[in-house]
């Protein structure tokens, strides 16, 4: 898996973008934390529940959560969540579900380390890697997915039986390595997220004052 710190950075950026008036220290912490949750399957794997990058990297978890949330907030007269936590709670819940999928699962899927995002329907790991460019000599070049006759194909390193995702909890070799940042672009995203939070704090304070001190 890409470093959990990267998931947290992506979740933070998403929270800054989408929390809006619900942005505060507590809500951004919740969203950032939820983005880190999928990587906990690295802990579940060694104790016999599923496998790393599979159990909690299943796309059905956020889909199920979104369905529950939609049911609670859009059907019937009253909403349990809105009764208890108000508008704030509903907004934070939606952003957290988005962060789980977009910041928690997707970064792993879009990296060579791959995620079994259809688990438990399929225990195969998939990775969306490649390139997409326009060339004056070769036209459109796209290598992310193979397009066949009515189906598309993703790169896969194997299934949970044949492919071991290396984590610091369950390392392949002797060394345990907790990776925080692997490359320059990841460092840029982490720093950008870290700077965006206090800036968003200032922005929200300014907006609230201008809109009448709510």
């Amino acid at each position, binding site marked *: 898996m890409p470093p959990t710190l990267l998931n947290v950075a992506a979740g933070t*950026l998403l929270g800054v*973008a*989408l929390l809006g008036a619900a942005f505060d220290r507590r809500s951004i912490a919740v969203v950032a934390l939820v983005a880190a949750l999928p990587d906990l399957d690295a802990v579940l794997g060694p104790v016999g529940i599923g496998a790393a990058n599979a159990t909690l990297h299943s796309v059905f978890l956020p889909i199920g959560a979104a369905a529950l949330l939609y049911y609670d907030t859009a059907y019937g007269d009253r909403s349990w969540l809105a009764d208890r936590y108000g*508008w704030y709670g509903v907004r934070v819940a939606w952003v957290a579900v988005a962060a789980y999928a*977009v910041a928690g699962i*997707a970064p792993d899927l879009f990296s060579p380390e791959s995620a079994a995002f259809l688990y438990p329907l399929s225990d195969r790991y998939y990775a969306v890697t490649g*390139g997409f460019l326009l060339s004056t000599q070769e036209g459109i070049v796209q290598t992310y997915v193979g397009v066949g006759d009515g189906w598309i194909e993703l790169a896969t390193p194997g299934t949970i039986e044949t492919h071991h995702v290396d984590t610091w909890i369950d390392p392949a070799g002797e060394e345990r390595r907790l990776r925080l940042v692997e490359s320059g672009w990841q460092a840029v995203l982490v720093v950008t997220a870290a700077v965006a939070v206090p800036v968003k704090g200032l922005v929200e304070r300014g907006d609230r004052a201008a809109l009448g001190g709510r």
Partner: protein
Amino acid sequence: MPSSVVHGALAALVAVGLLGRFYDRRALSIVLLIVVVPEVDTAFGWFMDGAHRTVLHNMVFPVVIGGLLYWETAREGSWIRTRWGARGVRMVWVGLFVHTLVHISLDWAHLSGINLLWPLEDRFFTLDGELALSTTEGFVQTFVEISRDPETGGGVVDAGQGGTRADTHVPNPAEPSDEPEPGPVDRRFPIAVNGWQLYLLFTGAFALVAKRLQTARPPEADGGGRKERQ
């Protein structure tokens, strides 16, 4: 450069949140324009060696402009504030944020990097390395490596410095290579390379769509379990 599409996507993700109450189509367009502007220095490449990634890709101008903006927007009778109000002030700061942290920083981590300290110092720097905790190696940090030169005994700092303006050429569609070869020129316009760039494209688009679906906070918010689509 990671493509302007990638820059634009990350800029959109950041701008959705930071523009706050001034977020609208026009403000977003201005931010997207600001984030692609530095590529103009490619055009200087036709008469100035190594101009791309030098003239508008450095950290000196953001610092200078940041200082000037702070002075200008905080003073009595600020021109930006008088002319465009609070919206103008928000726009210039968000613009500086995306220019520095989205465009310049991402390019810093890409290929030969950027001419970080130009015009003070003509030297390209590449941001690359890793940060990790290891049971065999302890704390690992390779972005800036400090070692001792075995011959002279002096300290050596490797922060990813490369060549100078004269010997560094970052390929781009306008100037695919430094020394043109005979035959048809292959100009390549990358949209996304590697999974993470495609990921940023989708995430930026996701944020824009999600923002559109969101409803504003109702005035009587937090008043109980009234239905409100988020």
